[in-house]
């Protein structure tokens, strides 16, 4: 097909590489089509400048806390599909894959509690009430105990008793944070 001015709209509409190449070749010798293509290109160049990026330092945290934690991501005893610590203890031949499953579940559960902690933090940091002071103290003790247990578990990854204690500490921390949010949040 020999490209002429009547084909220009088709080329622009189809946005096909071959047709556009033919259009540009034709435009080299046709002033009207050259101007039309130039205007088309200017519009594209200006449009690309409308892409707009800016820093939103708090946006991911805002999204993260607003996404409700899914029960299915709860760790160990809270996740039926995952191997239970008691079973782990009785089965000394725990596979590496199963252990990884537990660790992934643990990480997801810990992230959920971290999110809860971030929501509760303003109340814990700012409230002068004795009730909140008690919660603060309890959470400090729980965090210290969790850190100790995790150190111990690092040295003995298959110790079922330690795993169960860690689960129970995390559950206590979760319960405490929920109480903070229910009982100590100022009414709007």
């Amino acid at each position: 097909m020999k490209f002429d001015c009547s084909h220009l709209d088709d080329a622009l509409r189809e946005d096909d590489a071959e047709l556009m190449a033919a259009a540009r070749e034709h435009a080299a010798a046709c002033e009207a089509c050259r101007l039309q293509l130039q205007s088309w290109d200017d519009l594209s160049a200006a449009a690309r400048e409308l892409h707009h990026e800016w820093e939103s330092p708090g946006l991911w945290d805002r999204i993260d806390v607003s996404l409700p934690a899914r029960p299915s991501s709860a760790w160990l005893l809270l996740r039926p599909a995952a191997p239970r610590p008691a079973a782990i203890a009785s089965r000394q031949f725990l596979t590496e894959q199963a252990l990884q499953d537990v660790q992934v579940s643990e990480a997801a559960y810990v992230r959920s509690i971290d999110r809860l902690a971030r929501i509760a933090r303003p109340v814990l940091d700012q409230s002068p009430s004795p009730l909140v002071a008690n919660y603060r103290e309890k959470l400090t003790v729980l965090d210290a105990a969790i850190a100790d247990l995790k150190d111990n578990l690092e040295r003995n990854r298959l110790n079922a008793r330690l795993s169960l204690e860690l689960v129970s500490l995390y559950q206590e921390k979760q319960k405490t944070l929920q109480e903070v949010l229910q009982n100590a949040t100022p009414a709007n």
Partner: protein
Amino acid sequence: MQPEAGMAASRATQPATDAAMAELCLQGDQLGFERLYRTHGARMKSIAWNMLRNHQDAEDAVQDTFLKVQRSIHTYNGRSSFSTWVYRILVNTCTDTQRNRQRQTEELPENLSARESNVPLRIALERALGRLSEKHRAVFLLAEVEGFTHSEIASILDIPLGTSKGWLFEARRELQRLLSAGGDSALRRIR
């Protein structure tokens, strides 16, 4: 808690395939959503900003989109790519916001970047875009501003590929007409 937080942050920035992100999100794993944000957040914000012309509204729309993705992830059927499906939710969210909007629109900052070469045309283009129909504006933004292919646009807007091409052509023609109106063409002025 620090070690986990650090580990989660570094895992979230690892390159993730579309399918892997979808799988993580489907499992309810927060890491999937974080990777989605790290991979597509900037583009999502830009689309939302261009549709809503307000930074706060744009960030709210991105946040709403993540909530909707989590809520409806079980309906994702894998026929389109996961990110395309997410962008579809974003565009619909922005369209809803446009219809119920409270905040005023903002101008794009003057000092965007060093690559910027044509501020008068850009400003004229922003204004002209505001006069396009919803469908023409959406196709133009996705194709020309954000660089999506017609096949991706067809999937995001749930339209046939030929319709995407047709709407883009019509949008550009209308923009040319608006920018050339009155004989003092922004397009001509820059040459």
